[in-house]
């Protein structure tokens, strides 16, 4: 056995659906066999049976679907985006199975935009996906920034008041 061909023993089971809600599984000809439950939500049409290049624009590696690449493809970092709008970008890893490939994709920096566009919820993400933690942190930082800005506003008001106070004669109420 050579190149990327390696039995996985998992194909056809639901294991990818659970572990990789954003996966795309396709055969040696590039035809899509199955997609993860969240991935399926992202397009208005059924991707199964379509060719990878009908759904995705492949950014890198450009030749990932070429027959000579298919023999050896294992582990490259994928960069894709949807061919049709909204053209959400993905990054991902790829693994070769016995007669198929599994590309496990994620939103990358596009998570914020994608969640808005596709109206996704916590349940759409794998438990291990850091996208939710990222959103949490962003929101926490925004909230804390709000606190700091309010504090600066108060500080500014207090300073102005003190300045007026310092430049006004206490007895006459006239400016010094």
């Amino acid at each position, binding site marked *: 056995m050579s190149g990327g061909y390696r039995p996985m023993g998992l194909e056809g089971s639901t294991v990818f659906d659970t572990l990789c809600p954003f996966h795309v599984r396709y055969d040696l000809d590039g035809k899509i066999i199955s997609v993860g439950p969240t991935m399926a939500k992202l397009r208005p049409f059924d991707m199964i049976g379509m060719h990878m290049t009908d759904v995705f624009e492949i950014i890198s590696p450009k030749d990932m679907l070429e027959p000579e690449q298919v023999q050896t493809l294992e582990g490259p970092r994928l960069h894709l985006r949807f061919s049709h709008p909204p053209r959400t970008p993905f990054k991902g890893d790829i693994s070769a199975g016995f007669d198929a490939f599994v590309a496990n994709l994620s939103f990358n920096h596009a998570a914020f935009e994608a969640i808005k566009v596709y109206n996704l919820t916590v349940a759409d993400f794998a438990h291990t996906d850091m996208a939710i933690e990222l*959103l*949490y942190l962003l929101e926490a930082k925004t*909230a804390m920034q709000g606190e700091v800005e309010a504090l600066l506003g108060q500080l500014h008001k207090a300073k102005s008041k003190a300045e007026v106070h310092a430049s006004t004669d206490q007895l006459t109420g006239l400016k010094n």
Partner: protein
Amino acid sequence: MHALIVKGLKGYFTHIHGAKIWATIAKSEGYAPDDFELTIVEDRQLANRFVVKGAQLLDRTDDDLLQDFGLYLITHPSTNALRRLMRFSGPDFMEFLVSLPDLAPRVSLAVPDLILPRVDVAEIELGFEVAIRDTIDGFDHVLVGVIRGMADDYGALVDITQTDCKANRDLPDYSYWSVLVLDVAFHKGREFGLLGDTA
């Protein structure tokens, strides 16, 4: 004592019980009602004394008042940011309970100098036993109020009672609470979009 805790108490007394009550409480410690926007509070016991004074004025127990404060932190419009951050714990109330031990580390991610007590959970029949360490006086009651608020937020029907340690984790400096989830989807709960107002 973190300034956010005192600020939270000020919000609670002002929004729930009125500006007059808060002015009386602040004055009892020699502060003006608006003092806590700019003051870094060095006095670690100040929040406790505010709670004691408030409970006395409102004729309630300290514990009862603290639980009500926790509930306020989740349910009041002015603290919606906090309620939203809590909802990031998971898609349903059970997941929220399992994630309670992550609460302190998560809070520290957002506010590095706010160190909350350690919380542990153990699965029991119908729910979880929650153990809350007593490194901040009264924090357990505040958290119980928060848990009640979050149960309602997720739409779960729960029964929360203080218990003796049942799950064989005999740690004396913890207080133990049994949180029984009678119905995880009792009502629809409040909306939670991942992007909230920042979208």
